[in-house]
Each structure stands twice: as structure tokens, then as C-alpha cells.
């Protein structure tokens, strides 16, 4: 029997699914458009809430699949055709591939902060994104303002590109709250003399040990939390920034000068997700992410037999959940290939 599976996307979900599938006896090809696997998680220095090095997790997943999975980096999928034999996947380079089953694990993109023009990203020098801050941590660089000074006060802005009809995203990106708390702690850790202010609407500390991290940020690190969505950011002649918000807990408008602003950017669907859904007539939600057939019981399946979904292509997800989801997908794929009915 043909046991070939193609996994599209070499991030946490795709790599995990590929590794699990090969362990279950499948012949797996992993396609990645970049020149290396690892996805977004590979750019992250430490992971919430434990602050375990991201590299440790990526290395573990890579080791679980590298000797058994055929990894093709630098391969872009141009089309996926469902035929009587199974699937044909066409690439921008090289011959078409065939498989019995395909797993879509193409993940997400980070929100383009320039779309929130009033926050000044791409206009003011001292406005950066959470991904850029993480790169500073990962490269072991010192956090400084654009002109090389140690910041005395940093503002972290939650929900940038999330829960905001004005940018077309009503949904919550789930992971930015705890990322903001983690990064606030890390700024205080690196620069004990720097005050950190987090501007939030709600702090959604939904998972295990998240609330404890929030408590630690307040108790041990003295991070200041101000409830209110940033209305605008304006630049002073010295390139520091004035933040304007409502301090909703006092019910008064508030303004404050900070030396550096960090925007906690949310998740958005990749443009390719739209192409895939159009090509295969898959369901998407109002958020633009792909929807499984049944959110409870067929949460990795699509309307196309043999085509499965894994990870953040279905919407914002943290690494822990992406790994669990990808493993569940692998089991479903194996059952499909073996012709077993999964009743649960």
C-alpha cells in the first residue's frame, strides 16, 4: 500500500506531524519554502511561560524527524490536485510529487504593524515589534534606543492587530498577552533601572502557569500594568515617544513619555492560506484561517478526503498546542491511510 504523505510547512506543526508520521510507518516528505525548517518558533529566544530556550524545543523536534523524513527546503507549492490516485503536489522547482495524503501546516504570519499607522511603526525610530525584541534577546544584543542609549522607560502595547475591527481582525491572537508579560520580565531582567509599562485591554492568562507569570511580573519585577488601548503614539524632538491612552481603571485619559515602544503583534493568516482554500474549496472562518470539518470531533479533517490540517493554519495557537495538534493529525492520517474508521 502507498503510505506516502506530504507535509506542507516546516514549522513546529509540520515538523512534529512529519516526525510522528514517520514514526507511525509512513513515508514522509516535508516541504518548506524557506531555506531552513523551524518556522516562527525558530526565531524565538525563550518560550513562555517557563522561559525554556526555543532552540531546545526546535532541536528536539528536528532530531525526531531528520533521519527518517525527506526534507525539501526552498520548495514552494504551486498547486495541490486531488485525483483518483490521491494527491499531486506541484512545486515551483523540481518534479511534481504524489502522495496518498497531504497535511497542510502552513501556519500564520505576524500582523504588519505598519497597518496600525497611529502607533508609528515604520515612521518613528523607537517603535519596534515583539518579534524584533525577541531577535535582540536571541542575538544577545543589548536593548538600546535607536541612537544607542539605554532606555529609562519602555511601553509594551498589547493587542496590536488583534481584537480590532479597524484592521479587520476581530479575533484574539491568544499568545501575545503572555508573550508581553514574558518580555516585560526580560526587559526588567536585562535593564533593572528601566521602568516597564504594559498597556492592555484584558490580560488573557488562559493556560497553566500563565497567571503565575503575570503575578511574578508584578511582584518580583515591578512591571506596571495600565488598562487601556493605546490611542496614538507621537514622537518628541529627542525621538522619545508620547503615549496617549485612557487609564480605564481611573476613568481618565493618560499621557506618558517612553523611550521605546514594543508592539505585541498578533497572528494573521498567510496569503497562501487563501490560495489553498480557494484551490481545494476548503472552509475558512471569518478570521480567514482554515476551518476543520468539526471543531470538536474532526478538528484535523477537511472536506477533501485525505487532506488534513495541523497547527496555526487553523488559527492562533501556542507551541504546546501546535505540537499536540500535529500529533493528533498524524494519528488521523495513519488511520485514513490504513482505511480504519476513527470513531472517537
Amino acid at each position, binding site marked *: 500500500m502507498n503510505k506516502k504523505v506530504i507535509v506542507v510547512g516546516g514549522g513546529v506543526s509540520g515538523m512534529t506531524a512529519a516526525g510522528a508520521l514517520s514514526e507511525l510507518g509512513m513515508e514522509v516528505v516535508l516541504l518548506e519554502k524557506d531555506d531552513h525548517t523551524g518556522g516562527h518558533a525558530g526565531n524565538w529566544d525563550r518560550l513562555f511561560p517557563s522561559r525554556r530556550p526555543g532552540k531546545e524545543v526546535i532541536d528536539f523536534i528536528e532530531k525526531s524527524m531528520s533521519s527518517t523524513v525527506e526534507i525539501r527546503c526552498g520548495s514552494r507549492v504551486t498547486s495541490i490536485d486531488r485525483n483518483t490516485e490521491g494527491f499531486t503536489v506541484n512545486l515551483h522547482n523540481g518534479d511534481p510529487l504524489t502522495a496518498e495524503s497531504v497535511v497542510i501546516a502552513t501556519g500564520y504570519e505576524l500582523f504588519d504593524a505598519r497597518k496600525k499607522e497611529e502607533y508609528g511603526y515604520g515612521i518613528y525610530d523607537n517603535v519596534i515589534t515583539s518579534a524584533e525584541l525577541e531577535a535582540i534577546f536571541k542575538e544577545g544584543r543589548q536593548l538600546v534606543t535607536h541612537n544607542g542609549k539605554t532606555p529609562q522607560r519602555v511601553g509594551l502595547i498589547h493587542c496590536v492587530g488583534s481584537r480590532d475591527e479597524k484592521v479587520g481582525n476581530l479575533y484574539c491572537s491568544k499568545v501575545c498577552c503572555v508573550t508581553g508579560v514574558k518580555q516585560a520580565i526580560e526587559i526588567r531582567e536585562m535593564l533593572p533601572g528601566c521602568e516597564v509599562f504594559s498597556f492592555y485591554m484584558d*490580560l488573557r492568562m488562559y493556560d497553566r502557569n500563565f497567571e503565575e507569570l503575570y503575578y511574578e511580573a508584578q511582584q518580583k519585577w515591578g512591571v506596571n500594568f495600565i488598562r487601556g488601548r493605546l490611542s496614538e503614539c507621537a514622537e518628541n524632538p529627542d525621538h522619545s515617544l508620547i503615549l496617549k491612552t485612557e487609564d480605564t481603571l481611573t476613568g*481618565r*485619559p493618560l*499621557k*506618558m513619555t517612553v523611550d521605546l515602544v514594543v508592539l505585541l503583534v498578533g497572528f494573521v493568516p498567510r496569503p497562501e492560506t487563501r490560495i489553498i482554500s480557494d484551490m481545494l474549496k476548503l472552509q475558512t472562518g471569518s478570521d480567514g484561517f482554515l476551518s476543520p470539518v468539526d471543531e470538536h470531533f474532526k478538528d484535523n479533517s477537511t472536506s477533501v478526503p485525505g487532506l488534513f490540517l495541523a497547527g496555526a493554519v487553523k488559527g492562533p495557537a501556542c507551541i504546546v498546542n501546535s505540537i499536540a495538534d500535529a500529533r493528533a493529525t498524524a494519528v488521523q492520517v495513519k488511520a485514513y491511510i490504513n482505511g480504519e474508521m476513527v470513531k472517537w
Partner: protein
Amino acid sequence: MVKNFGYKILSDASIDFDRNDKRIADYLKAHEPSMNLCIGCGSCTATCSAGHFVDFNIRRIHTFIRRGETNQVKRDILKCMFCGKCQLVCPRGVNLRNVILTINRAIEQTG
């Protein structure tokens, strides 16, 4: 003679964090650091003995202090009766009675 049209210049009603006097906040932070644990739930205000009869909102007062908005607070803080119910209900374990005592002490010291 200039005619008086009745116009006047209003002062800025927003919280100006940079200019505000944060001496009480700093004193409080040093002497009762548990105040930073507040999550603004309002349990303290909901149970407050004084707040049920007079205009006294301990949750807001303590937030104002942290923002350096102290003028009105100096008057309001005297309404507390030290019954301690706020502290019994606080989900974050803020030592609220000592927060108020410390605010009073800071007001005495800063004038």
C-alpha cells in the same frame, strides 16, 4: 475696554504621568510592595464599609496614587474606617490596610 465673552482656558484634565508627583507612589512601593499586585478587580471597593455610604473608592484611590494623582486622594483617604474587609477579599493578597496606613504616612511626610 475689552469685552468679556466668558471664554476661559481649561486646564488639561488628563493624567500627565511625566509631570505628576510620584513621591507617595514611590514611598508606597518601597514600604508596601504588595500594592503592585492589584489587577483592578474591584473586590475591595465592592465590600468596603465606607464606600457603601460615602464617595470612597479604594480601588481607584490606590490606582490614582500609582499614577501620581494625589490631590483629591489626600482628602478621600481619610474616609477609610480600617475595618479590613478589603484585605480579606483581595484575590491577589494585597495588604490593603497597610497600603492605606502607608499612604497616610507618605502624605504626612511629603506634605
